[in-house]
């Protein structure tokens, strides 16, 4: 009958109206600056540098190999390698800048880094009053701890840690094997010496 649908619709909206007061579950709004939605595992926007031990400078995993700098499509990474007094490279970045106003969040730097030193961040409240200097993230702003990495991307970080530990164990084994091989060679050499003499 004419008007039936209107009454049904009015009942539905009335239910919503009253329901939104009696049952706060219905309200889907997140009151943003005070409340946050828990970040998703795959959320990512700009890169950051991971450090392992306490010191955020010395502990950086980055060895300043500049692979990411070369691969970055918009060329927004700038790296200068640290050198000691004699000019020998230190395997450590002296300058590591990312201009996030240029970065397009492609994650290529993360893919190419052989040392798992650079990862994607979820920090998005980056508004600045100065759009040149403020968005040029320097080394000290970029370096964040491994714990932080675990906090934002726990699954991925666990994988990376497992892989790194694996690699480290293998490397140690290799070293041990080498040492053992050297030792046996030495022993054999020593054993052979008197015969020769």
């Amino acid at each position, binding site marked *: 009958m004419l008007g039936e649908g*209107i009454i049904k619709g009015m009942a539905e909206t009335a239910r919503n109206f009253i329901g939104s007061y009696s049952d706060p579950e219905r309200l*889907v709004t997140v009151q943003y600056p005070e409340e946050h939605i828990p970040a998703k595992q795959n959320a990512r926007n700009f890169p950051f540098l991971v450090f392992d031990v306490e010191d955020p400078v010395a502990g950086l995993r980055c060895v300043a190999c500049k692979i990411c700098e070369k691969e970055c499509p918009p060329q927004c990474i700038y790296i200068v390698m640290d050198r000691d007094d004699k000019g020998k490279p230190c395997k450590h970045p002296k300058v590591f800048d990312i201009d996030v106003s240029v970065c397009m969040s492609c994650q290529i730097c993360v893919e190419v880094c052989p040392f798992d030193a650079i990862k994607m961040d979820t920090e998005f409240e980056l508004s600045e009053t100065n759009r040149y200097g403020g968005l040029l993230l320097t080394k000290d702003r970029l370096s964040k701890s491994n714990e932080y990495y675990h906090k934002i991307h726990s699954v991925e970080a666990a994988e990376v840690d497992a892989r790194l530990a694996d690699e480290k164990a293998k490397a140690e084994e290799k070293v041990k094997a080498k040492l053992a091989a050297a030792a046996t060679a030495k022993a054999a050499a020593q054993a052979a010496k008197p015969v020769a003499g």
Partner: protein
Amino acid sequence: MGNPVDQIFVILKHWLLSFCPEGYVPIASILLSVIPIMAVFGGLFALTTILERKGLGRIQNRYGPNRVGPCGLFQPIADGVKMLTKEDIVPRAADQVIHFLAPFALIGPVYIAYSVLPVGRNMAALDLDAGLLFFFAVGAGSELAIFMGGWSSRNKYSLLGAMRAVAQMISYEVPLILSSVPVIMLAGSLSPTAIVDAQGGHSHGLMQWHLFTPWGIAGFFLFMIAASAEANRTPFDIPEGESEIIAGYMVEYSGFKFALFFLGEYLGLFAICGLGITLFLGGWHSPFVFLEWIPSYFWFFGKLMAMIFVFIWLRGTLPRLRMDQLMGFGWKFMLPMTLLNILVAAIWHLSKTWLFPGVYLTRWALCLGILCAAYVWLGRSLAGNRSVGKRVYRFAD
């Protein structure tokens, strides 16, 4: 004069006038009537915008504005500041003068229409004998203003919106006036004050509002439907039609002029709600005898808020009509129903002299029966030749 609390504003006005020098009394009297109307209904507009946004939010399971002030109550102030500080853009091709005048031409008549509304006992600013006629005549001025705005903007959307507005408002003015004819017939007067007085008596503790008669129920609903079309409210907001023609006749307005259009629209809504209250809901009378002690203006504004709430509720529920549906509904349903309602009112009035036991119930049954039969039959025949089945698309499939 009734009790002093009820008459406080009237007494206040007389007291203020007594300080006025002799020759200026008429002007002072006018000002003392006009300024409160402008202030009160302007304030009501601010209140309604926030209530509407909150109500619509709740209907959609949102909070609505809640940032400015406690519970977001200062939002209208923030909006006002925003509107005032915005750039006022006038298109180069627009007709500058008419473009400028249109918002004021909309506000003016609406405020003038308030002058005949009795908002409380002895509280009509202008007690005209032909007040109702005056109200409708002035109210028709808003069509002109809307068309001025749409035409002078030199914009296709504006013009379309304005054409829609004029077509809609003129076709719904007919049922609007026809649905109030029974009231005029039975009250025997065109004066809003007299119409409210006619609803003042009571029987069995219930007021004799026109709503409590068969023709009154039908008339009230028909009036409110036509009123929402007159006030461009959903489901009759096709002149604005954001999703089709952006904002209709308001497209080229910005800043304060846009706010004025907005204000005019809401004021029009309040005015027509006020008229509905005057005609059918007993004006400033209380619904029950034992509540008579509450001042009359409270009742008027309480009823007004209730009607506004219903309009917000409707806006949160109904989608917009299509132009042909709107016209079809207006001419094929509203017009016959209002005409029939006049007939029913006549039957109700003439059968007053019948005398036999159970006559009251018989009259009710007779009048309601006629109206319901017509409603069902009209509804069926309008929906009849429309098949509601699976839709067939010619090109999309």
